[in-house]
């Protein structure tokens, strides 16, 4: 899908200061973000973080208490100005967690429904439904009743129904969480392929970080109604802004410490951590918003910690293997370092055993000092 390099396409969807109360608790507490046309954005976070509330606000399935939501040149809702566009007028396709395939209709009827509502001529409906069923791979199931479909097939039917009317926006509410693991992994790729093909701007809600990493152009990590970080999957994984994001995405070793010496221009810094009462200084990359003297958390991914028998770099740290679990292509190790236990990934060929003395080596460019 060709994209004009204009301002409106860059800021195709804009959520501004969105507030939604449930009772006396703010479910979403003033969040803002923009995405470009054709983008695939994932709202990621644990249950209760406000991601589904944000999605429902965009869908118009409930009113909002503050802020505004705009898509293209259509203002969806802006309670300040008394604007609330009914959900059916927003031109959105949505895939629900339960699939919400209507059990009293056939697959074709389900998929044709949005077009029938738009009063599109019968012939055109038939053509478009056939096309979209082919796209999702359900051509053979067209005349089956919805109740005869398997979970994965219902998922595809729901997707077909969501995209058949070529909406300006596609919303996904944890659509894969009811599928088993194998099917889920397969559908991730499939969903992404179809979204790419139709090129509809999409917002995807999930609590599954692997899903988010695989499918998204951009990820927003949320907690307690706030945005913790927004960025590409690579950024979110390799440059988390704080310990929450670092911990939520992937696995991380997190050590509390204090920034002792920092370059004014950012970059390299010395961080002092306490190990069994002993202060130890480690070289690392300083994250955004930190300066000398700040409390910080060191975030190190297990794949960036190397356990070796013979130290060859500078300042190796001695430790003892407390557990080594063989997982086929790698060994999941725990290495005790004073009172801190490192999560380390080792090559199976090393043959690390419990109780073995090893040295840990770090690469300072992969040691991140982030906000606590």
């Amino acid at each position: 899908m060709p994209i004009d390099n204009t301002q409106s396409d860059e800021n195709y969807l804009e959520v501004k200061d969105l507030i939604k109360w449930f009772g006396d608790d703010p479910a979403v507490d003033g969040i803002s973000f923009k995405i470009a046309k054709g983008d695939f954005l994932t709202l990621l976070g644990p249950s209760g973080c406000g991601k589904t509330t944000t999605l429902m606000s965009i869908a118009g399935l409930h009113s909002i208490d503050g802020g505004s939501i705009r898509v293209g040149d259509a203002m969806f809702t802006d309670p300040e100005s008394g604007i609330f566009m009914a959900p059916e007028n927003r031109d959105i396709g949505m895939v629900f967690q339960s699939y919400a395939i209507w059990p009293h209709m056939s697959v074709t009827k389900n998929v044709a429904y949005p077009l029938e509502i738009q009063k599109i001529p019968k012939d055109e409906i038939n053509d478009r439904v056939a096309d979209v069923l082919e796209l999702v791979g359900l051509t053979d199931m067209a005349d089956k009743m919805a109740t005869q479909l398997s979970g994965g097939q219902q998922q595809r039917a729901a997707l077909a129904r969501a995209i058949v009317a070529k909406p300006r926006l596609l919303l996904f509410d944890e659509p894969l969480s009811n599928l088993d693991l194998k099917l889920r992994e397969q559908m991730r790729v499939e969903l992404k392929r179809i979204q790419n093909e139709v090129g509809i701007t999409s917002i995807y809600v999930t609590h599954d970080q692997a899903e988010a990493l695989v499918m998204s152009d951009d990820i927003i990590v949320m907690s307690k109604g706030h945005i913790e970080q927004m960025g590409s999957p690579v950024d979110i994984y390799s440059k988390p802004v704080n310990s929450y994001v670092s911990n939520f995405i992937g696995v991380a070793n997190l050590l509390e410490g204090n920034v002792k010496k920092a370059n004014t221009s950012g970059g390299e810094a010395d961080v002092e951590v306490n190990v069994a009462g002993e202060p130890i200084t480690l070289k690392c990359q300083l994250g955004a918003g930190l300066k000398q003297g700040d409390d910080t958390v060191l975030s190190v991914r297990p794949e960036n910690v190397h356990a070796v028998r013979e130290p060859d770099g500078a300042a190796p740290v001695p430790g003892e293997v407390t557990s080594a679990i063989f997982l086929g292509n790698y060994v999941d190790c725990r290495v005790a370092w004073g009172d801190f236990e490192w999560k380390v990934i080792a090559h199976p060929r090393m043959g690390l055993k419990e109780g073995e003395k090893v040295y840990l080596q770090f690469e300072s460019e992969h040691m991140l000092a982030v906000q606590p």
Partner: protein
Amino acid sequence: MQEVATVATGPEPQRTEGPPRRSKAENRIRALFNQENIATMVVALIIGIAVILPLIALFINSFLVLDDSGWDTEWGFDNYLLMVTDRIIPKAFVNTILISSGSTVLATFLGVSLAWINARTNCPGRDFLEPYNLIPFFLSPFVGAIAWHNLAAPKTGLLNNWAQDYLGFETHILNVDNLWGVIWVTGIFFAPLVYLFVVGSLRRMDPSLEDSARTTGAGLFKTTMTVTLPLVMPGILSGAIIVFVTSAGEFGVPFKLSAPYGWETLTTQIFSKAVGDDANHYLGAAMSMALGIITVVLIWIQQRYIAPRSFTTVTGKGFRPNVLDLGSWKWVAFGYNVLYILVAVVLPILSLLVVSLHPVWEATIQPAQMSFINYEKTLFFWREDSIQAATNGIFNSLILALVGATLSMVLAIVVSYMIHRTKGPMTRLIDFLCVVPIGFPGIVLAMGVLVTYIQTPIYATLWILLLGYVTRFFPYGQRNVSSIMLAISEELDQSSRMSGASWFTTLKRITIPLLKPGIFAGWVLLFIIFLRELSISIILYTTGTETLSVGVYYLSNFENEPLTAALSMAQTIVLLAAIFLFRRVAGKEALTA
């Protein structure tokens, strides 16, 4: 694809840049004005008027005291004082309590034992017997009383005569023309209420709960008494309270069996104050208030404290539990169940049939005399000598049942939607308004409707009956719809809205088609209830607006037994057909509360 423009959003939300946060109160006021909320408020208003107005009118009228002239009134508590000082009313009060208590004991014993036999034991022929156990629930207790009067009145009862002729008894052995008779008939007719409250949880109960009791050495009887029954105790209590309240509000049975012989009840007294020779609406209103307060408090306790607990006793697993092997006792259980069906269904209907075929009933069966003349007189409206009260009743009841059931279900759908799908400010109020009518006996609500609308044009028309029927019984339909609405995901509606369909189109094309089984089951249930309705009709009818049960009442009071039996049979046959239909559409446990 283009790189994306992102807004740097740190851990702190940028609240200061946005518009100022409005107060929650202001937001709520703004939220009031959208399409769905306005619809909710209108429906709340309609139900509120229908439900609350009669109760307010009842309350006000109960404090108006009729003076000696019989024309003027003044404010006072005299009507309530009469509850204690009157010659008849205090006795009626006591009789009501006696009947309700006795009926509750009998119905609970029958209901629990029959449910246990059907759900937990290997009693033979259970699947065959079960539907027959429920039939009394749908039939008219008033007709049951007429039938049992034919069977066991001291002088004319068929059973008494047989006992004297064939068993050599000197005098009658049975007498239902007293409080015991009322207890007997209400007890056997309301037993299915308890049955329905208990049988579901018994059937779904985790058998390991019983098994673990057995492994500790407890016998069958001990296990049943210490584990099984306590586990379903909330259901038993719920059923017992419903029976007590229903018996207290029952008009037809005491009117037929006890009132003529000197045992008045509150309902028969309210009736005589509403339309009798000594009519006094204000005193009737006060008695209705007294009866209504008792039933409302009991229903409130049941709804608030007992019903919510019944969910905790079942595991909800979808397996069929092992049934208990009763050994040779299973034939005792079988005989017991068959006996119940015999006295509650077969004997009453047979007696009606026999009596209805005799032009004159002299308490003995005379095959030579039999004819259909009574059916012709009560059903063939084109005949010169047809009885108007009966033929009117058939027409009016069919119209009321068809229109009333349809109207109630429309209301039920809208109200269920409001309760379960919209989160408007009126939702809880509507929910409450749907419980209120269930708390009041029909005769009490009818008394309220009477004093509210007696001076309006709808009085003495079918409209006032329709209003009374729908107000009192639409919650039954609402429960049917709500239970299905709870089971279908809200996302099915939402995905229609996201497909571009409006609220109304969604209701028409998605919600209602999905609810169809519940709507139809509710419709048939209300059709049955309206077709046999007596205690509202008896207060609100006038000449020309008789209903089927009022027709039976008229024949019983002013004509003879065979004519009464004929119209009762006609009503029973239509009801049986409707029951058959109901079971076909609603399935086995649709009624289980």
